[in-house]
């Protein structure tokens, strides 16, 4: 019954299309809010997303700072310490561009020997960027991949996900962000098409039972309601910065699909080409590159920045991620809890779906399922929650959404 409705819808749309003739393909694309000419129904095998297939639950704390990442320089003893942490939910995406900025600061000291503290994605890309700038780099870290918090992210291009709050970050940060995002994007493109697909693209579908232009936006908070300025913590999702518009000229836009090319049993669908980071292939590749360029890793744990004084390198780039809260006692770091739930990879299916507040993404190391927002809280979900333990019921709920979706998809033409 439902499917017949869908087909009826597609005929209706077809009829409308037939009545209006567009002058050109670009005109048609613009009218349909599309960037491409209509394609055919993509063949998407349903995924085996069931709770009993779960292979892992990973929980991380995003290192969020209201003013954006910490990039300032400090003298500790005779060491020049360049801080580099607090990228919220955008560390992977912004890593190369952010590293380029701090390595520039390191270069201006004229010193050649640099210590990098931490070996998450920010530490590793900082170390590689410093090597590429001709520096001699030692990474000091308590943990290596896959023990760092970085690999507990979902691993996709989300450059302005909880990166800052608009007001505390100020207008200046927007252009710094743009610089980082553009630099990262170009660097990531250099890792496309390599063996093991360290970096890849996925068609990511956003589904909705109601038309996208009727999706309710969370109401703006009334004037005078508590916010970051009055409480020291973000209070509503409208405070979080969004900078995506600044780089939309290089990021693939979303296509709204019509019923004839929507493979899902849900009335409305958008498709976007999403860059993803495959942790295993990419992490090992970065480590190999670091060693090949003569880099050294020392496993060592620091408990206060005063311990940096004992390092032999005159310049220290401090990349501890959320660890900065303990290491530097940085209270400006606000934890934002995130949980990803993993199922075995399914080689015949390489796509992503977002539906009913949950996200799914097929990656080389598994199918990632994540609860994004079940409550309409938007970016406020998980704010100031430092409970770094798996929540099985959250996994069940997110997986249940897709289990139900793919059960309804079974009757789709193969």
């Amino acid at each position, binding site marked *: 019954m439902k499917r017949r409705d869908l087909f009826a819808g597609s005929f209706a749309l077809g009829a409308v299309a037939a009545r209006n003739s567009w002058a050109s393909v670009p005109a048609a694309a613009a009218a349909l809010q599309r960037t491409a000419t209509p394609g055919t129904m993509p063949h998407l095998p349903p995924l085996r997303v069931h709770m009993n297939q779960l292979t892992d639950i990973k929980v991380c704390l995003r290192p969020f700072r209201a003013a954006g990442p910490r990039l300032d320089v400090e003298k500790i003893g005779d060491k020049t310490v360049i801080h580099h942490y607090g990228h919220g939910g955008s560390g992977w995406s912004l890593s190369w561009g952010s590293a380029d900025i701090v390595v520039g600061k390191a270069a201006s000291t004229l010193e050649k020997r640099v210590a990098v503290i931490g070996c998450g994605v920010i530490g590793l890309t900082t170390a590689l960027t410093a090597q590429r700038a001709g520096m001699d780099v030692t990474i000091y870290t308590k943990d290596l991949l896959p023990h760092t918090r970085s690999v507990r992210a979902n691993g996709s291009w989300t450059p302005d996900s909880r990166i800052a709050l608009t007001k505390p970050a100020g207008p200046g940060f927007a252009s710094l962000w743009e610089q980082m995002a553009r630099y990262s994007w170009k660097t990531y493109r250099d890792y496309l098409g390599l063996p093991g697909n360290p970096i890849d693209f996925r068609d990511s579908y956003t589904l909705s039972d109601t038309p996208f232009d009727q999706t309710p936006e969370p109401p703006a908070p009334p004037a005078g309601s508590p916010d970051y300025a009055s409480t020291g913590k973000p209070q509503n999702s409208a405070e979080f910065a969004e900078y995506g518009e600044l780089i939309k000229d290089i990021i693939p836009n979303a296509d709204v699909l019509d019923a004839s090319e929507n493979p899902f049993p849900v009335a409305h669908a958008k498709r976007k080409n999403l860059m993803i980071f495959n942790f295993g292939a990419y992490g090992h590749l970065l480590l190999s590159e670091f060693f090949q360029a003569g880099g050294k890793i020392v496993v060592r744990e620091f*408990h206060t920045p*005063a311990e940096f004084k*004992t390092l032999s390198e005159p310049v220290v780039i401090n990349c501890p991620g959320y660890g900065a809260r303990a290491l530097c006692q940085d209270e400006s770091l606000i934890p934002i809890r995130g949980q990803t739930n993993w199922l075995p990879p399914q080689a015949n299916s390489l796509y992503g779906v977002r539906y009913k507040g949950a996200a799914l993404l097929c990656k080389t190391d598994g199918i990632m399922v994540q609860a994004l927002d079940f409550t309409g809280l938007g970016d406020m979900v998980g704010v100031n929650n430092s409970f770094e333990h798996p929540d099985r019921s959250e996994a069940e709920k997110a997986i249940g959404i897709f289990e139900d979706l793919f059960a309804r998809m079974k009757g789709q033409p193969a």
Partner: protein
Amino acid sequence: MTRFLQKTVQLLANILPDPAQQAHQNHPYGASLQGSMFMPAAGTLAAHALLRGMPHPRMNSAVAVAIAPLALIIALSAPAHAAGQNGKTKPLPAATYTAEQAERGAETYKETCALCHGPALAGAFDTPPLTGRFVANWSGVPLRHLFDYIRHAMPLSAPGALSDEENADILAFLLRENGVAASKTPLPSKADALERVAFPHIDPTKNTAPVPK
């Protein structure tokens, strides 16, 4: 000539104790670091390999297997140092605790720490164990450093939630679980007093710690 003078001043500054640091002994940024926190580079690599159960990427696995036990011995038997004035080192007395303190600490541990670090202190994939590498991290260091670290960083979900006494009890429990025998002298719960005792060195062959349940 000016450059030479600058260099000399800088060298002297590096050697002489930093007055600011002494003035801020209570501030964690001012806390001095102990020489024994360094493990020889080869030891670090091998200990890493040993503890992670895999060879370091730069190390041939046969070498790792051969030198790993050696590295562990080096790591565990590094002499106790307490960097005193003018860079002179003097071993600090080993910390002591009473059985009652450790008992109380065991209870507090169960309530506030075990969720992450596990009932047997074994940690988990994403949580460090409180044995083994933990000992390598703290052995020979004034206990105050660990005390301060626990005070400001733990428990992860509510840092600073425990009292100094509770944290000292937890320290006593951790010493017990790592094979340090109880004594009649209690472990102080004041930061100043903890500055003057070290996390003891542990002989793994004489570990009397209760077998984890």
